[in-house]
Structures are given as C-alpha cells and as structure tokens.
C-alpha cells in the first residue's frame, strides 16, 4: 500500500513536468495554431541558464533569484524565436506548416548551441532540499517531489486565472475561436502571438528547471521531453488548461505503472518508454479532441 502511495507521489511529480510542457504547447497552439517542437529545447535553455546562474564563478545567484532569472531569460529566448522563425512567415501569409518547420530548424540551432557552450556531459542543479524522505499524511516522497507539485499547481492556477479572469486571456480565447473576427474587434494579433511565445517559453523553461531536479540532464534532453509533453497534451485535449495537467498525470501514471508492474505480466519494463507513443497514437485516432473538449463559443 505504501508502495503504491509512493508511486503516486513520484508519478504526480513527473506528471507535473509533462503537464507544464503540455501547457507550454497549449499557450502557443490556442491562439496561433503552431505546434512548436522547440519547447523541449526551451526547457533545456531554462535548465542550463539556471545551472549557469547558480554555479558560475563570477556572480552565483541565490536559488530563488536564479530560477526567476532563468525563467525570464527563457521567455526572452521565446520572444527571439518567434521574431526570427514565426513572425516573418506569418506576415508573408505562409501556410501554418511554414513556421512549424522553421521551428524544427530552431530546435537544431538551440540544441547544438547548448552542446557547444556546455559540452555533452549531463548537468544537474544543486539539490535545494537534500534527499531525505518526508511524509504528508499517508503520502511519502522527497521534498523535491512536493516542491515540483507545489510549483506546478501555482503555475496552473495562474494560467487558469489568466485565461478566465483577464481581458488578455479573453483576447487569447477570441483569437483561438476566430482569428479574423478577433482582429476586426481590435485585438492586436501580433501582440497576442508575442505573448503566447514569451509565455510558452517561460513555462517551458520553468518545466526544464524542475525537470533537472529529478536527474542530471544533458543537451539531448529536449526532444524526448517535448514528445512526452505533446503526448500529455493529446491525451488531455488541446482546448483547455486543465487538460494539460490531466494528460500529464495520466501519462506519468501509465508510465510508472508499466515500469513497475509490466514485467510481472511478461512485458519487459523498458516498454514503459513506449507508453507516451502508444497513448498518443490511440488518442489521435480514437479521440483527437482529447479527454476534455474545448468550451464552445457562447453564441
């Protein structure tokens, strides 16, 4: 019993990271329709920026400040990415595939730049809390797990409030529902796109920072994380903020259950690596809207 509760905590913490990556996609897909595979690379940028800020010889920042600065830096990278690879194509009226493919090129650029600067070895952030076990009621886990869960909850509440309660959030929704009508109503499409990419990048960078708390990561971490995050998004549904975290949780739970119990029924436990892909295929074919359908436009 305590075994399964422990598994739940660790699944929840990796589910949070998948959920954040899914949220990063969602923030960009909703208003622009662009699926940006470079989110994994943004996560790596956030991680390596935090690593640099924490461990550099000249001005090592305190932990909280370094995290905030790393996330802000990733947001800036997000702005640059959209300025280079998205805006020129959108303004030329290129089909939506154009920016998606250009962003794949950006993915290669980010990854190789990180490996040029930091080398091919895995890095991890210094552990902020040590590795002792703590219990919260019946749930036992490392402080790191609870930190990840807490931070993710805060981000999701923030983004949910943004979409539900602010004019800017409404503008995002309006653009998602009908681009042309939104523009005619005076919403600045260019600004919404910029905000989507900066926000998406910041969220991805934060996910990368949290991701590195669980294990050392190297410059190749981005693409697998991007795939897992997308798989979570497909499971949860592209239309709703809650879908991202729901999909992340389901994916992480399925992965960890397979990793722990599959060999008892004769499947090699390494097959758990295939779980995201299997889920993605099943959901794309059987329920392409994901578990949560987008809200209908109020007529």
């Amino acid at each position, binding site marked *: 019993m305590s075994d399964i509760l422990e598994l739940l905590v660790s699944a929840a913490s990796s589910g949070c990271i998948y959920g954040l990556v899914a949220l990063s996609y969602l923030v960009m897909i909703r208003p622009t329709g662009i699926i940006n595979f470079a989110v994994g690379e943004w996560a790596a940028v956030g991680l390596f920026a935090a690593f640099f800020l924490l461990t550099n010889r000249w001005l090592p920042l305190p932990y909280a400040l370094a995290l905030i600065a790393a996330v802000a830096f990733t947001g800036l990278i997000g702005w640059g990415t959209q300025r280079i690879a998205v805006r020129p194509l959108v303004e030329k009226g290129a089909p939506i595939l*154009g920016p998606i493919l250009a962003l794949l090129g950006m993915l290669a650029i980010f990854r*190789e*730049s990180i490996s040029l600067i930091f080398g091919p070895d895995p890095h991890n952030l210094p552990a902020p809390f040590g590795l002792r076990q703590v219990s919260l009621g019946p749930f036992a886990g490392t402080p790191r797990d609870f930190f990840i869960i807490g931070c993710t909850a805060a981000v999701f509440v923030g983004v949910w409030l943004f979409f539900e309660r602010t004019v800017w959030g409404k503008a995002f929704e309006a653009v998602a529902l009908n681009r042309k009508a939104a523009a005619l109503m005076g919403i600045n499409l260019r600004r919404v796109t910029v905000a989507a990419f900066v926000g998406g990048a910041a969220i991805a960078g934060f996910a990368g920072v949290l991701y590195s708390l669980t294990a050392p990561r190297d410059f190749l971490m981005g693409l697998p994380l991007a795939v897992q995050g997308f798989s979570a998004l497909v499971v949860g549904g592209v239309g709703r903020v809650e879908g991202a975290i729901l999909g992340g949780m389901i994916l992480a739970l399925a992965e960890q259950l397979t990793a722990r119990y599959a060999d008892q029924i004769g499947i090699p436990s390494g097959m758990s690596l295939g779980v995201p892909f299997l889920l993605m295929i099943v959901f*794309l074919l059987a329920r392409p809207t994901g578990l949560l359908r987008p809200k209908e436009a109020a007529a």
Partner: protein
Amino acid sequence: MTRAAPWLAAAAAMIAVAFLLKDFGYYSDQYRKLMLWVALALGFNFLFGIAGQVAFSHFAFYGIGAYAVVILTFKAGLPLGAAVVLGLALCAVLAIAVGIAATRLEGFYLALATMAFAQLFLVVLTEGGVVTGGAGGIANYRLPALEVGGRRFTLTGPYYTSLIALVLLATFFVFWRLDRSYFGRACRAIRDNPEAAAAMGVDVARTKIVVFTVTSVLAGAAGMAYAFVDNIVNPPVFGLENVFLLLFMVIIGGSGRHAGAVVGAILLYMLPYVLTPLIGHHQALVFGIVMVAAMLFRPDGLVGAYDRLRARYGRGAA
C-alpha cells in the same frame, strides 16, 4: 522504352564510380551510404514535397526493411530471396495499416502520429530481446551467397555498390514515372487543395494510402540494401534525428522536385566533411541555420533559386 538512354548512362556512370572507388574502402562505404540517402530523400520528397504528407515514419520503414531481412535470413533461416519478399510485404502491410489510420489525421497531426509510430518502433527494437538484439542490435552476419543456375556467387565490394546504385536508380525511376502520371498529378492536387481534388474526382483517401505505402516500401527496400553495408543493424540509425535530417535535405534542396531531393541529400551529406574541421561535430547547428534561412527566404529551395537565376540570366528564359 525509347528514352532508356539517359537511365542506362546514369547506371553506367554510377557503376563506373563504384569500380573506381573499389580500392578506397572508406570512400566506397561513403558512396554507398550517400546513394542510400539520395534514395531515401527521393521517397521522402515524393511523400512530403509532392503528396504533401508530413510523415516522420520514413526511417522507421527503412529500419523495418533492414531488420526484417536480417531477422528473417539469420534468425529464421529463410533464403535471402524469400526474406526480401517477405520483408517488403511486411513493410507494405504495416504501411497500409498506418496509412489507413493516418487518413483520419490532418496536417501536422499526421506528423505526430507517424512520429509516435517511429518512436514506438525504436522502443520495440530496444526491448525486443534476442529477436532484435536489443540496444546493441544484430551484427556479425554476411550477405549470403546467391545461387543462380547452380552457380554460387557473393556480391562483394564494387558489385554490391553497383547493386545499391541499381536500387537507387530503380527508386528514382518509380518516382519519376509516378510523378508524370495521373497518380502524381492527383498527389499534387491533394497537396494543394484536397477539397478541390475530391471535387475533380480524385479518390483522396486511396491516393494518400497508396502514396504512403509506395514510399514506405521503397524506404524498406533501401533499408534492406543498408543492412549489408555495415553488416550491423542497431536502433540509433533509425531514430528521429535522421528523419529531421531528411526533412532538412528535401526542404533545402527544394521540396516537390526530384532534383531538389538529390541536391539536398548530396549537399547535407557532404557538408560535414567541410564543416567538421571548422566547428567539430556541431554541423547540425549549420543545418538548423540553413533550414530556417531556407524557410524564410527560399521556400522553394536551392533548385528553385537555380531556376530563378536561369530565368533571369540564362538561355532558358522563355
């Protein structure tokens, strides 16, 4: 065929190169791999550039072909000919299954589903135990001797290189003919506007499935040829990285054009030789920059740029 001459000349030239390189093991090996890349790029160009399907499963089918021929020949003990036929049939069946499922998906969602399929294939290879050899793959096999009319002979060195040249030319021929047929025009019509194509009487779903199957089976055939180049098959070769490279090749060369696929494949395959002395093993950085630049400034690729230059300055201006 009245216009067989160019094809025969190309075959003769490529085979001549194979024999010229026969004493230079390294270059011979690179020549073989370059030809396989060109074959893959031609197929991917037909799928992506001409038929407009963004599918990331091309290398998975390359891998299915390679693994199938090795496993069927050396684990199941089938004769080589039977293994090749069965392997191609396997590619076809899988491609039809993926293709039918994929007709339900639009645009980039097809890319994601095929990418998930390709990654799933890698997981199966890595976890396949004795059948696939796990992460280390299968090695230590040799191309079995062929028996024709009671005489046994083995294709080695330049003879095997020539076989790859013929595989490449056959692939090119198939795509070239297809492109110039009703089928090719139907593919382009679907790429540009599926509704209009359907209204003109094109069977959109069937065309999509056929195109996916043909390109995937030919990728599988190239994979079979690859299996005896290094005499080892292992998972990393068939991963996502190489599909991205293939995509870059086709876009930088000029998507939708056979010449573009050939130029792009040769260029990106040779570029590391120039780049490695300059920036070490970070050639992907340059590929990424060139890819973004191509998308921004030259969506029709190098071949398109060449056409423009010729239209402006050359005799070809019509």
